């Protein structure tokens, strides 16, 4: 997969997260993976079609998911990752991918995105590609989100 395709996702993260109330956005390491990813507890899959196709999976712990949902809901405490929090995280994944899609369009690559599917559970795996794909670790106010990107 082409490495230039990851910048639109990094830019989306650094643009959107401050808009929903995060201050300190840090870009972590980028690595390559060719096997199924182990979920950290909450994983949201968003599909991509049109000029390039693939999947993006946002992977995070239950604690991070609750923390982000709480920030998105203006600081309301989120003790359990309930329906409202799940909806917030789905919406965030949608916003991040839609913004990345706009950034891709700016590079001359038209894409459409599908609806986010959020999976919750312990010890599950998620495979988004048969080939090698890229993993970016991003953090927002100390909470890590692993973005798995398989596009071609």
């Amino acid at each position, binding site marked *: 997969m082409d490495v230039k395709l990851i910048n639109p996702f990094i830019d989306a993260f650094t643009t959107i997260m401050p808009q929903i109330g995060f201050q300190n956005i840090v870009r972590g390491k980028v690595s390559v993976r060719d096997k199924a990813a182990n979920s950290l507890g909450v994983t949201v899959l968003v599909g991509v*079609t049109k000029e390039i196709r*693939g999947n993006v999976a946002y992977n995070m712990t239950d604690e991070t998911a609750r923390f982000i949902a709480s920030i998105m809901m203006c600081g309301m405490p989120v003790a359990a990752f309930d329906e409202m929090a799940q909806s917030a995280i789905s919406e965030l994944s949608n916003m991040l991918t839609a913004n990345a899609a706009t950034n891709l369009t700016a590079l001359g690559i038209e894409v459409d*995105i599908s*609806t986010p*599917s959020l*999976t919750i559970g312990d*010890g599950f*795996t998620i495979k988004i590609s048969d080939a090698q794909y890229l993993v970016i670790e991003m953090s927002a106010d100390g909470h890590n989100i692993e973005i798995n990107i398989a596009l071609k």
Partner: protein
Amino acid sequence: MIDLKKIRVLVVDDSRMSHAMMDGIISRTNFEICDYAKTSAEAVEKYQIHKPDVVTMDMNLPDADGLESSKRILAVNPKAKIIMVSAMRDASLMMQGRAIGISAFVQKPLIANELLDTLCMVCQSDEDSLKILEESYIKTFIKVLKKNLFSLAGVHSEVSYALSEESKLEINGIAIIIGFTGKPIGRSIIHTDFDTMNNFARAILSRQIDEKITEEEANECMEETANIIAGRSVSMINDIFKDRELRITPPGIIVGNNLSIVNPKLTTFNIVASTKLGDLKMNIGFAGGE
């Protein structure tokens, strides 16, 4: 179903030619033009007077653009149904339009069928949309599912389906998620337990019942089955509705126990194909409305 009461359309456009074209298309249908507005201010005023069922909104008006004018109408009635009419089919314009609550887009020059289809679609109640989803989409998937389970694994299946009441889908085993883009967006999930998956994989690969099968082989069989079913269903739907431009994303494969998959904003149907190899389940969801 659309009843016999005419559906009233307010046409917002500053060009006389557009009025005449719109009238030519809409007369002799179940729609009627209740009035024309030539400016943004007039549009808001006439919207309040007539309370039309639907508004067609040109992008370029002398006093404000179509987006701004739509915002003003939506401020009066957040449920107002507005169709944007524009010469440009500009993605960012459409995105902005969608964000403020515009229901649909048609391009100029107006094509009769396209305009009428869009008017029908926008004016359908939720109940009608559900019926269309069921008749045109879900039943197509079921037909394709049955046919392909037979051609891939040589099994007959009894298929039942129902509208799902839950936004959460329980998974124990494997789930193959394939997204849809186009109109409407959505996703399909084929899922089953590990025993059924292995049975299907053996049947697909023509292995004996006691022969070994690797996890990877079994996963790949499910992935390919899901891909074929989603792909063929979507091409059948595209053949029926020429304007849907449905596309499928590559599959995402989830493996584990006691998982739930959540899609908060979808209307979903649960489909179960009972076979002698076990139950293969499918959950298909589309975003509401369009």
